[in-house]
């Protein structure tokens, strides 16, 4: 791109009119090209007086909570913003449509079966029963590292959570949340350990109807004993979508 165009490209970025692809390109340039970054700052400064117009709207009182908690525990730099969850969900939805996801699901199902088999719940010498309805989620960190595998068995209303490579955070607890499609607030499923495989009770609201609509699980880092107000305040460390692993 010619020099003069780069300045206008920076202007379009600051104005906010680039589409997703162009925006990604501009953000790459911002990281790699100091001249472009300077252009963007200049444009932001030129255009920002426009923000004097436009209605101010009081945010909900809850908005300060997570900010206060993050700055007081010093987890800001490591935080994985909650709004990223929307993005992660999008990523998962996108990957559903490609073959890689099919492989991942098959692997997770195999892993789930191995967990059940090791648990002695189903002997390989007995005639196979009709497959139970089962959902699987792989909870990954932002950089794609697998932290936990969750398998949910719809008969017993219980789910198993198996730590894979997650480390116990010092002085904090990991709390597991269900994010349902139609509900605004995440629902806590309880604290999770990184040391051992555990069975936990699933709340009745997580039925197959809800799961088919799409439920995401997320693990946030909270103060010892869990989020004090029943809503996640800390950064999201691992997240993944529950997908049906049986026919």
């Amino acid at each position, binding site marked *: 791109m010619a020099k003069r165009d780069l300045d206008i490209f920076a202007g379009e970025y600051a104005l906010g009119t680039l*589409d997703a692809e162009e925006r990604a390109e501009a953000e790459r340039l911002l990281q790699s090209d100091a001249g472009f970054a300077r252009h963007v700052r200049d444009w932001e400064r*030129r255009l920002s007086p426009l923000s*004097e117009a436009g209605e101010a709207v009081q945010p909900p009182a809850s908005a300060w909570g997570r900010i206060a908690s993050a700055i007081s525990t010093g987890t800001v730099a490591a935080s994985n913003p909650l709004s990223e969850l929307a993005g992660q969900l*999008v990523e998962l939805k996108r990957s559903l449509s490609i073959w890689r996801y099919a492989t991942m699901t098959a692997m997770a199902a195999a892993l789930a079966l191995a967990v059940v088999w090791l648990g002695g719940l189903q002997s390989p010498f007995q005639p196979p029963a009709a497959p139970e309805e089962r959902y699987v989620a792989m909870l990954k960190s932002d950089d794609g590292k697998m932290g936990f595998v969750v398998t949910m068995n719809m008969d017993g209303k219980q789910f198993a959570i198996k730590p894979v490579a997650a480390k116990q955070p010092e002085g904090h607890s990991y709390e597991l949340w269900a994010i349902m499609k139609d509900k605004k607030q995440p629902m806590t499923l309880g604290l999770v350990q990184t040391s051992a495989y555990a069975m936990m009770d699933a709340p009745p609201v997580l039925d197959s109807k809800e799961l088919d609509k799409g439920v995401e699980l997320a693990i946030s880092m909270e103060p010892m004993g869990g989020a004090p107000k029943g809503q996640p305040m800390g950064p999201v460390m691992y997240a993944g979508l529950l997908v049906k692993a049986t026919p």
Partner: protein
Amino acid sequence: MAQPQLDQLLRAAAGGDQDAFKAIYDATSAKLFGVAVRILKRSDLAEDVIQDAYLKIWDAAPSYSPDIGSPMSWMVAITRNRAIDVLRKRTEIGVDDQSEVIEQEDETPDPYELTAQSRDLKALLGCMEMLNPDQRQCLLLAYYYGYTHEEISDRMSTPVGTVKSWIRRSLARVKKCLDNG
């Protein structure tokens, strides 16, 4: 809030003063939330966006310098960028649930109608007056709503190629005018 005071609070926050940061939040959150709601048209997403924006502001406060604009315009830029990123991620894949969209009067903010305008705004609006009304409208739609060229083209019933060249030419003219002013 007077500008010098926000400057001072930001310097205190850069040194780790959480009370100063709360004062910044109290003074600016309605403005930033308004910016995010207008772009995302959803209160829940806008709340996430300002939370992320304030964490970024807290994090980046030590690197803030008046050369990059007033504290308010710096914070608005951070919020707009975050809001537009979230907007693009959602519309790209089409996950937007229309039922949760806030129904609002689609009245684009009009900076020309403001009774109290800063010196910088007066200068910018003076330069934008050289543009024809349609070209000016393109800039305002892009700035206030984060619309893409395509979305502006739909709303103004103008071919997307025309919108693109209008915006590029308008930016170039505004820049030249401001730099000479």
